[in-house]
């Protein structure tokens, strides 16, 4: 097996193993119903994480994801009040996400400021924007929300693939194509591997950097649209801290924060591992808030160690 598929394989093995352990612990856990729900519940964050995968592969980071999710929801809800169709406001927010990401990319590249800081300012700006628009939760009452939620494809067993999961899978496939089969995708890997070499080889730096963050902004805005439709509301605190979950999903999916190494495909499984953690805790039902935080941390630790161990042992076998 090619070495670059090792982390992805390890992530999938960990995911399946944990799904199996869940099945041993709880009745009815091993079903397409649970799987479909994990996909639907976490679709918005996985979508945002897919966009971030490009950013991280290029050696950068995007902290503005969570705020973007909240901001998109708040704007869509307020436009709904004045009679906009969610599709129209959603499309506008996708363009906004693209533009906002492009601006972040431009500042990062042109002014040579660290992505962590530029996108941290983006986080503050968008979250502050949410608070300036309104402080309460605003419902989205358009019938389209209901219609959107009722679309689904039945899976074998009791489960079904909800509309949000469908959007996520389409976005995921599109991202795989962009990353693996386009010149832009190759440029992203080149920049992440070694920025100077990439520039010397003739990679158009500014265009690619702007494109990377624009793509990240677009995907997080798409995550925000899905979240707003899924919860049928806009809440200014929505998505708080989701940037870290998204980044952790990318890393659990086998992408290195140092850049140049990783697969978009892995992010889906990384995000699903996080969904699985939440579902395992929910299935127990007796844990209080403090335990949920602690167990979340413990499971994160176990996953990371397990994944490292799997990758390490695979490598050893390959070498022998």
């Amino acid at each position: 097996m090619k070495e670059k598929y090792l982390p992805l394989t390890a992530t999938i093995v960990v995911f399946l193993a944990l799904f199996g352990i869940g099945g041993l612990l709880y009745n009815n856990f091993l079903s397409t119903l649970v799987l479909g729900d994990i996909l639907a519940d976490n679709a918005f964050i996985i979508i945002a994480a897919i966009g971030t995968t490009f950013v991280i592969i290029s050696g950068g980071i995007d902290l503005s994801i969570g705020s973007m999710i909240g901001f998109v929801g708040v704007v869509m809800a307020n436009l709904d009040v004045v009679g906009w169709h969610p599709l129209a406001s959603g499309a506008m927010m996708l363009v906004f996400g693209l533009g906002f990401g492009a601006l972040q990319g431009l500042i990062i590249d042109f002014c040579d400021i660290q992505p962590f800081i530029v996108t941290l300012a983006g986080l503050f700006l968008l979250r502050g924007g949410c608070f300036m628009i309104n402080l309460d939760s605003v419902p989205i009452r358009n019938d389209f929300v209901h219609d959107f939620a009722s679309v689904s494809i039945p899976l074998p067993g009791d489960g079904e693939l909800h509309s949000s999961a469908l959007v996520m899978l389409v976005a995921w496939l599109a991202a795989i194509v962009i990353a693996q089969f386009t010149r832009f995708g190759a440029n992203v890997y080149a920049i992440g591997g070694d920025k100077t070499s990439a520039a010397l080889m003739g990679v158009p730096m500014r265009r690619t950097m702007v494109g990377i963050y624009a793509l990240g902004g677009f995907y997080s805005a798409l995550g925000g649209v899905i979240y707003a439709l899924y919860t049928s509301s806009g809440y200014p605190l929505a998505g708080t801290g989701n940037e870290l979950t998204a980044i952790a999903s990318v890393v659990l999916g086998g992408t290195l924060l140092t850049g140049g190494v990783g697969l978009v495909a892995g992010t889906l499984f990384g995000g699903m591992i996080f969904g699985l953690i939440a579902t395992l805790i929910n299935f127990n039902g007796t844990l209080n808030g403090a335990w949920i935080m602690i167990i979340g941390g413990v499971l994160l630790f176990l996953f990371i160690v397990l994944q490292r161990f799997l990758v390490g042992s695979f490598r050893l076998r390959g070498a022998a």
Partner: protein
Amino acid sequence: MTQTPMTTNTKQFSFLAAARALAAHKVVWPLAALAVIFFIDFLISPNFFSIRMVEGRLFGSVIDVFYRAVPTAMVALGMAVVIGTKGIDLSVGSIIAIVGAVITWRIHAGDPHLLILFWALGVGLLCGLWNGFLVAALDIQPIIATLILMVSGRGIGLMINLLYGGTNPSYTSALLQGLSTGHIAFIPTRLVVFLLVFVVLWALLRHTALGMFLESVGGNAKAAYLTGINARLITFSAYIICGLTAAAGGVILCADTHTSDPVSIGRNIELDAILAVVIGGGSLAGGRIYLGMTILGALVIQALTTSILSSGLPPEYNLVVEAIVVMGVLLLQSANFRNLALSVLARRKR
């Protein structure tokens, strides 16, 4: 720079060159930002700079900025060290939560209060060891490694609170509250404590080889290792230092409200601390530690927060204004942006 005197060419050039050199110096822009913020405060309320004596201590808006900046600045000192090794520590807020919970727990258990300071530092040490173990021994990327404690730390704090009942227990301690809100000869005690921590850390970094080792590991860990530096041990020490300064910040922050409130104490302090380091010219790519500049960064952030609150703007605007000012400072620090701005200005003049 826009008011360049139009005298002879040579004079103008030397002036421009001096201005350019000044503009490129890292201390200028944070200092300028602080000056501008203070000046706007002065315009809003003319008695901003007045310092008077109330109940035997100095009192005034400027003192208040320094006073409130202490916890963030304390945390930011350790953060500067970790960032200097190309790392990052997201768990400082959680460390503060655990420290607050342990302090309250031990006071309720009846320990002597001086001992409790060691409990607090012990917690910081332990958390630093854990983070250091993950980063240095297990080679996990810092942002993910410290995310583990960030996620679970506040839960641990809540569990400690539950040990002896009570959700948000409070305490009274002359020693701890004195360290935080008291004063020694007009000067707030926490400023003295902070100065002490700063001097100790500065001496540790600049009068032993540790500072150079830390920066060399941050610059290039492999090269540092090949020159005979025990890179793992050095990385370990960075996270321990960060854990200890976070604990010190936690003692002050917790004594402020003399309550253990793990859910909300020190929320987002990791972001403020990282921002303070970056405004102070520290690069997340590692290799440099600027302790003094980091304090300046923390002051800029606190001055901004204080002035938004005192200016009567609704607090909802806080984040947006903070984002804009931080971006402004960073853009001005960027040579490319300065050149662009200069050329735009020059074109307009013509």
